[in-house]
């Protein structure tokens, strides 16, 4: 029983840790209040709510709320709210928004990308109960290719003229083209 609990809790804790790490990584250095503060707050809330959803995943919903006491109704409402939205999607958008508000820092962004993908994979493993080793083994090549492209995108940002004007747009176009080519070339 204890082994089962540990195996269930491990990916959930890992997902929470990765979410916190991604939020902290995107927030550093702190830009103060205003829009960055709002983005950070939204991201933090999403990470917390997503972690709570995973933690309460096995709690069954109360079928009958009519005869339930006030605390039971409150718990039921909280469960419904936590399960209503896709917190991870909102969190990803908020973290990207927060990252954009920082000045360009390609390697930092690349690490954030790796953290976000790891977070999403871990959340999926935690909520689906899939064996992490089997899933990652099957997707290892794709993830590795994605990491290479991530590094390539970060490196491309250091090229001269990559930060402003038409050169920047061309760099983005080139990055998208490389990704599209990789998607088409890699075997399924």
């Amino acid at each position: 029983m204890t082994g089962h609990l540990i195996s269930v809790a491990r990916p959930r804790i890992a997902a929470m840790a990765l979410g916190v790490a991604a939020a902290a990584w995107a927030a550093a250095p702190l830009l103060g209040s205003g829009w960055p503060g709002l983005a950070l707050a939204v991201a933090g809330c999403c990470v917390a709510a997503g972690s709570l959803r995973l933690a309460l995943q096995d709690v069954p919903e109360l079928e009958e709320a009519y005869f339930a006491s006030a605390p039971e109704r409150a718990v039921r409402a909280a469960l419904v709210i936590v399960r209503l939205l896709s917190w991870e999607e909102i969190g990803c958008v908020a973290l990207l928004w927060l990252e954009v508000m920082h000045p360009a820092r390609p390697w930092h962004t690349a690490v954030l990308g790796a953290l976000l993908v790891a977070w999403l994979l871990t959340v999926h493993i935690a909520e689906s109960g899939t064996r992490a080793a089997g899933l990652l083994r099957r997707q290892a090549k794709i993830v590795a290719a994605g990491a290479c492209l991530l590094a390539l995108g970060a490196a491309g940002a250091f090229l001269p003229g990559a930060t402003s004007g038409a050169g920047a747009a061309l760099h983005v176009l080139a990055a998208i083209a490389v990704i599209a080519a990789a998607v088409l070339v890699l075997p399924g």
Partner: protein
Amino acid sequence: MAIPNEPGGQLASAASPVSRRDVEVRWRLSRHARRLLTLALAAMLLAVLNRRPELAGLAAPALLLLGVGGAGAGWAARQRPPRAVLVAVRPSDRRLFEGEPAWIDLAVELPGEPGGGYDARWAFHPGRGIEPASATAVTAAVARFEFTAPRWGRRQAGMAELVLHDRWHLTGGQVSVTLPALDCYPRPGVQQETVVLSRLPNRLGEHPARVPGEGAEFAGVREYVPGDRQRQINWPASTRRGRLMVNTFAAERSQDVVLLVDATTDVGQPGSSALDMGLRGAAAAARAYLSRRDRVGVITYQWGGARWLAPSLGRRQVYKIIDTMLHADATWDRGASFRRLPRAALPPGSLVVAFSPLLDQRFVEALRDMRERGFSLIVVDVLNVTPPRRWSDAWSATDRIARRIWAMDQHAIRFALRELGVPVVHWDGVAPLDLPLAPYTRRALLSHGGATPRAPRGMPDEKPSISGMQS
């Protein structure tokens, strides 16, 4: 299903059959795919808007997973997702007792290769009144979910949800399976001894009657008359008397027992309420009398009418009786009219064992009426609670007086029944029923004449009013 409190008893029920059915699969993009798509689109949009190529690179892993996975799973069309899957459901038993552990086995068979290249995950959503006793989600094609039903009643086991993921976990197929209904029987109390009437019908059984017959219990000796069996000659008595004497034996008879369960009022905590105890006591009594070869029937009386089962013999009758009692509820339910109960439901001369909290005046009147018509009655009082004490009036004189009046009223009801010759015994639901019934199981209960099959007074046909319930 083993019968609780029964020595060495295993139910004669067959193992539950496996139910197999094709269930439609609803395929859609998985949550994982939707998240990756959101990440990729947001990153791409921000890359274009802000002209920052590193953000396009950030979208690369998600896009690769989506693109390559999508090509591998769908576009290449190497294997089409199945439209339906074969699901097998097998409960451990359709009938169980309160608190008895039970389980349901679930299995999915996918077309093609074993496993079909899909990851299956079962989730169990227990129905009302079902408490899971194991993990409620299992990642495998075959799953077993254990549960218990803490309280009697007809229960839906719940729903099982199956999620199938393809190799890349980008599409998910959802299957919902309605689990079968289960009959949860009240856990019978303990009763070994039985109350036996002094006058028994002329039917072969196991109770020694007061008339001579072919039984095994010695009754006395008498003078030999032609036609007596030689083996019955009592040689020591014949030697003493100087003439042939023969042994006589008591006849062995059976009796009709009707269990009367009062379901009009249910007071107390769920699980130990008056109705719970009434049903448990009735189940125990049914087993005890049927094991003595008596014919046992049941009448449950509730708002809206009565349900009855004619007295009969045999082990199956226990389950028929409990099935009948499962309909008992402290709510209104249309049933047979108590006035028009046929003679078969309440045979004349039968022993009536009533389980009641004696809170409904109509039920008390009916008991009184049955007694006056000559039925031999014994009442098992299952009232174990007192009116709740309100905090605001905890120490007020009004509250104390009201409680005293209520207690005196209850005492008067029981006293009046005893004065009529109806024994009233109190059962707390914990001790064996033999303890309160002990004074009546040691000797035969005096029968009171033959009953006329007339409908009892005090049992109205129509739905009773609220005021009629308050005694």
